[in-house]
């Protein structure tokens, strides 16, 4: 399907043009460049269909809130889609510059941003989709794959992610999974050592059934991976769940199962939110919530997985990519 996707992606500009010609509802997209963003855009455009016209602006040097205001004034979009934290920052500042008394500033949907809930806090008329795959989604996929029961999952986090972990734990309770967090305080000097200690504690004292490694760059420097995670994980012997595909590549000695955002699916989900906005007369409710991503992409490192769990063979049919 990759070859197919490449071929279809080549037609995306044609789709955009087609959409722009016959459509009635303009949508302004502020986004970063890169293949993940293009794939999300593809999901958005193709799932919305030709009733919507898209104006895309790649956010790069020199593009700021004033330029965003000019774009909005020129195109009068019904709604905006913001991809990445920088697009959200520009949108928030542009919203303050806009004079709402003439034409209201359009509602916006933010995605592909780190902690989108925090990024849009205080920004009016803006909703979004988390980029972080919820722990529960990951654990349910693990439970489908593993013959051993998954009752308790460990996670190492810093205080910045504490609310995210707490919310994840609350969701997990509904599925009878306990999420146990080992928190490493800010300012800890030897973080690699703290990671090793945390993994030991989760393994020996908490006796977790799996370990979830958050996509937090603070813990994922080359040094901390080399001196913290890898030596401790060699003795962990339980499934290690990650959110980066490279961490399950052959020979990575890191994760067994990666559950990643499905970028086309993110675009499709945003398309659904835009349709609902349209049905509501382009008004976003006061309580517009940030949604969890629904579609994920699953990659299994078969060698690592076999060392850490007994796999249900029939479940491999549900894994998007198996690496050996």
């Amino acid at each position, binding site marked *: 399907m990759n070859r197919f996707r490449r071929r279809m992606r080549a037609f995306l500009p044609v789709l955009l043009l087609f959409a722009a010609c016959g459509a009635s509802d303009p949508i302004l997209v502020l986004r970063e460049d890169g293949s993940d963003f293009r794939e999300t855009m593809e999901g958005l455009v193709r*799932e919305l*269909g030709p009733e919507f016209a898209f104006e895309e602006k790649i956010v790069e040097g020199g593009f700021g809130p004033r330029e965003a205001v000019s774009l909005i004034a020129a195109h009068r979009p019904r709604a905006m889609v913001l991809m990445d934290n920088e697009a959200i920052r520009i949108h928030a500042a542009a919203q303050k510059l806009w004079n709402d008394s003439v034409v209201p500033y359009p509602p916006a949907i933010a995605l592909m941003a780190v902690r989108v809930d925090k990024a849009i806090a205080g920004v009016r008329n803006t909703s979004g989709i988390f980029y972080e795959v919820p722990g529960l989604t990951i654990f*349910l996929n693990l439970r489908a794959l593993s013959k051993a029961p998954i009752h308790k999952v460990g996670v190492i986090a810093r205080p910045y992610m504490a609310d995210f972990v707490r919310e994840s734990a609350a969701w997990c309770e509904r599925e009878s999974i306990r999420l146990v967090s080992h928190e490493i305080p800010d300012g800890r000097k030897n973080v690699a050592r703290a990671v090793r200690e945390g993994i030991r504690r989760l393994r020996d004292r908490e006796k977790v059934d799996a370990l979830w490694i958050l996509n937090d760059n603070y813990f994922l420097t080359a040094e901390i991976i080399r001196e913290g995670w890898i030596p401790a994980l060699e003795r962990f012997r339980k499934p290690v769940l990650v959110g980066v595909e490279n961490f399950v590549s052959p020979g990575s000695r890191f994760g067994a199962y990666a559950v990643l955002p499905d970028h086309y699916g993110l675009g499709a989900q945003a398309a*659904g939110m835009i349709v609902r906005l349209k049905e509501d007369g382009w008004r976003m409710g006061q309580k517009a919530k940030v949604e969890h*991503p*629904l579609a994920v992409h699953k990659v299994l490192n078969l060698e690592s997985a076999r060392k850490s769990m007994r796999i249900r063979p029939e479940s*491999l*049919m*549900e894994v998007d990519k198996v690496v050996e």
Partner: protein
Amino acid sequence: MGHAGARPKVFVFFPSLARPLAIQEALAGKCPGLDVTVFGRLTDLRAMAAREPPLAILAPLPALGQFGGYRPRLQGIRNGSATEKYVLLSIGKPFAPGADLGSSIGAVGIFDRAGMSAFAKGIVPGSPRINLVTKVEDLLPVLIFGSADAILISETNMREFRKKSRANLVSTELKNAQVGLLAVGMRAAAPLAGAGAEAARGEKDILAALKALDAGTLALLGVDAWQ
């Protein structure tokens, strides 16, 4: 189908929990004489079918109807029936269709948005909003994270979700919710005589290969026989 001897092209659209590539590999292994592509998303199938029309499309019968140039030649059956029941699945309590004007249901898209809305309205009373997803597996998060009040799902997939989730999944029966199983649609005769003869050979090859599928491969397509 561009030259003599080319393998007849077959497109498959069957939303299921198995990934499309796994179904494709299984079909390609059993039908080496066919050029099979399995699509997980309707938009992919529509785009590709418009550009390179295949000789046959395999899709759930209602979805096949949207490809005008294809007429059903084989109908998949399971346990003697050509249809399967769809239900509404919700958490904690049954979903009352029509009781709440603001309610929404999640569903996998087998038509475009307008078509899907019409399809769901034919099954679910009360005209709830439709929250479309592109993969069957996405429906479970829709339910668990409250993106919709209920999901529209086949009984087969409901059983699979009950294996995956410990949540209290409650099903609500629906009248008129028998949905056609996978069917095989063949492209209408090609305009040129030579191409028509080649298409006829291809059609014969496709039907023979599909009829020879073993039980395990048929199960991947949600059927156990053809009629």
